[in-house]
């Protein structure tokens, strides 16, 4: 029984860790490093620019030629922004939203995905098609009927409107279903023969096996909710409900001349999610980390 419940890939992975990966020929290694270097610069350059600009004075931001290094960082920008904006409120709201939405999306999404991939019932494929279908409809075309619906539920101008908006997305279902498909049906059937309930199978077999997929779904939902602009814009009116993105946008229009402060705000809006990502990186990239390929 226990061996049956083991994912088939696991033993292979264990062997993989034990045996060192083959080294590449020298020329290829150099080429590889070169590519990595170029890619890393390309990816990091805009961030470097953003952080640097946030430490400059307004006039320095657009100095010609570009100053890549500030000799005299203006740290006070980071003190000023807390004084000049409601950053604390915005961050609080965004953290709350991200947490609730992610929890709900991961739970309901993986739950529904189990129904779609491992329980056979008539009409299943049609329902799934409806899910995928709505992915293909641009949001801005149905956001008005949706807004009316949300008003009838008396959710507009509350944080719950954003929760309702984001938590039941089709993407999570699609993603989890796609992952569950890779888990052999035999495993589930064996569990059923063993007398496990469907919920038991979901909880005790599927969930533990799908940790990497759950982790990526968590990350994606978190990032989407954190960075969502149009949703909060349409649904939240009261300033004490604003999210970081809304706040940042209004901050930009209010302090239009303060390029450096705008950059400071941008850095702060990205920072929490970077920290979360770095802290949780081991889990997000679990499949990768377990194979001992760390650099």
């Amino acid at each position: 029984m226990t061996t049956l419940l083991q994912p088939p890939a696991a033993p292979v992975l264990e062997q993989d860790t034990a045996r060192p990966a083959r080294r590449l020929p020298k020329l290829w290694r150099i080429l590889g490093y070169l590519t990595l270097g170029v890619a890393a610069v390309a990816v990091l350059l805009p961030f470097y620019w953003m952080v640097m600009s946030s430490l400059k004075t307004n006039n320095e931001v657009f100095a010609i030629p570009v100053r890549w290094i500030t000799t005299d960082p203006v740290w006070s920008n980071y003190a000023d922004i807390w004084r000049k904006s409601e950053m604390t409120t915005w961050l609080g709201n965004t953290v709350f939203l991200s947490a609730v939405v992610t929890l709900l999306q991961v739970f309901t999404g993986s739950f529904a995905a189990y129904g779609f991939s491992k329980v056979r019932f008539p009409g299943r494929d049609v329902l799934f098609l409806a899910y995928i279908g709505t992915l293909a409809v641009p949001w801005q075309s149905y956001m008005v009927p949706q807004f009316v619906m949300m008003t009838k539920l008396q959710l507009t101008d509350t944080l719950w409107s954003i929760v309702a908006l984001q938590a039941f997305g089709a993407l999570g279902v699609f993603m989890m279903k796609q992952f569950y498909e890779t888990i052999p049906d035999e495993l589930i059937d064996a569990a059923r023969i063993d007398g496990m309930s469907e919920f038991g199978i979901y909880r005790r077999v599927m969930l533990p096996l799908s940790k990497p997929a759950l982790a990526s779904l968590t990350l994606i939902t978190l990032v989407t909710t954190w960075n969502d602009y149009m949703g909060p814009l349409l649904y939240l009116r009261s300033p004490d409900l604003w999210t970081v993105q809304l706040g940042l946008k209004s901050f930009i229009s209010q302090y239009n001349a303060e390029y450096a402060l705008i950059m400071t705000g941008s850095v702060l809006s990205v920072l929490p999610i970077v920290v979360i990502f770095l802290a949780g990186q081991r889990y997000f990239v679990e499949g990768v980390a377990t194979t001992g390929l760390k650099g």
Partner: protein
Amino acid sequence: MKRSLAAVTAVLLAVAGCSSGGDSEESGPVTLTLAGWSLATTPEFQKLADGFRAAHPDVTVELKEYDATNYDTQMVADLAAGKAPDIYVQKNLKNFYTYQNGKQLLDVSDVAGKLGKGVGGLSAYQVDGKTYAIPYRQDSWVLFYNKKLFDQAGVKHPDGSWTWDDYAAAAKDLTPKLKAAGSKALGTYQHVWQSTSQGFALAQTAGADLSSGDFGFLKPYYERSLDLQAAGAQVSFGDATTNSLTYQAQFGKQQAAMMMMGTWYIATLLSQQAKGDADAFEWGIAPAPQLTKATTGTSATPVTFADPTGLGVNPKISERKTAAAKDFLAYAAGLDAAKALAGIGVTPADSSAVADTIFALKGAPTDELSKFTFATHDTKPENPVAKSTAPLQNILKDLHTAVLSGSKPIDVAITEAQDRAKNEVLSK
């Protein structure tokens, strides 16, 4: 889990409480809601609310904040869902048609009938003899110039006699002289909006009409801008868009010696100079340059443009509130409100009556030309009210970005815009 459940219940209760509490009182004090935007930096709404309250102690006006750039998107959604405020601002005249045609504005002709003669911009809100909004602000586009930079370069200040050619010559004259004087400023700054070219062209060219589908009248205005860009006398359109340049910083931080802008900028500039967000320097306003000599000089009335900003009433408002809302509209267009608005640098609909108030503000210019400019102008609407205005303006916006970025020659762009206007808008 328990806590979030409690929170949900609390929210539901609060929502239920709000919705039942509002209409239950039959008499007594009235609370009106008023839409506004960027409340922290736009004090005019609070000013109106406070001023009205002083005269009508039993009516409270509560402000509801909207996003400045996405005001209409949010308002359309709120109106469709039936939860818009009682009174809302017609922020962009371009979209007035949408609200009026969609029956989202109460007929306020009775308020309009009682207004003083000096209130400008009223006709923009009239459809088939009925009035659907009351202007409380009527800005107009003028030329802002930096006296300090002009003196530094040794160039003569604008004197109200300028045509566009004089303006261009001055910009080209200023640029090298400013450089020689050790300043980084350019001669002029043209902001990225399409109105900086098209608003003037439409207002000043005889016979120009958006809905005619003939856009040839735009050509001289674009040729001049392109020429100034090429000469380096103004920042190129591409650099302005990619760097999200703001006009407040360009003029307020002395990056340019001149700039065409609406009179709303007076209030912003005064407050930014007072707070130190803008440099301290002496400035003035002059009439917008004219197409021909005929309308120049202080004995003539210079032609310029700008849309009025009006207040409309939500037709879903309860009858009990209607009278109070109409009182508010009448107040906002009246002399008391005009003075209150002028006190914070805002150009009220009745502008001639308050020029003294504005120019008495600390930091405001004191020269005669500035006062003349503020009080005397023939201000045409930028967006004549019609069904075709919004789609035509979208087509002309594409023309604007294509031409100023140098992607298309002006003649080609005009021909294309005319074809699109005929094909997509006017043939319907």
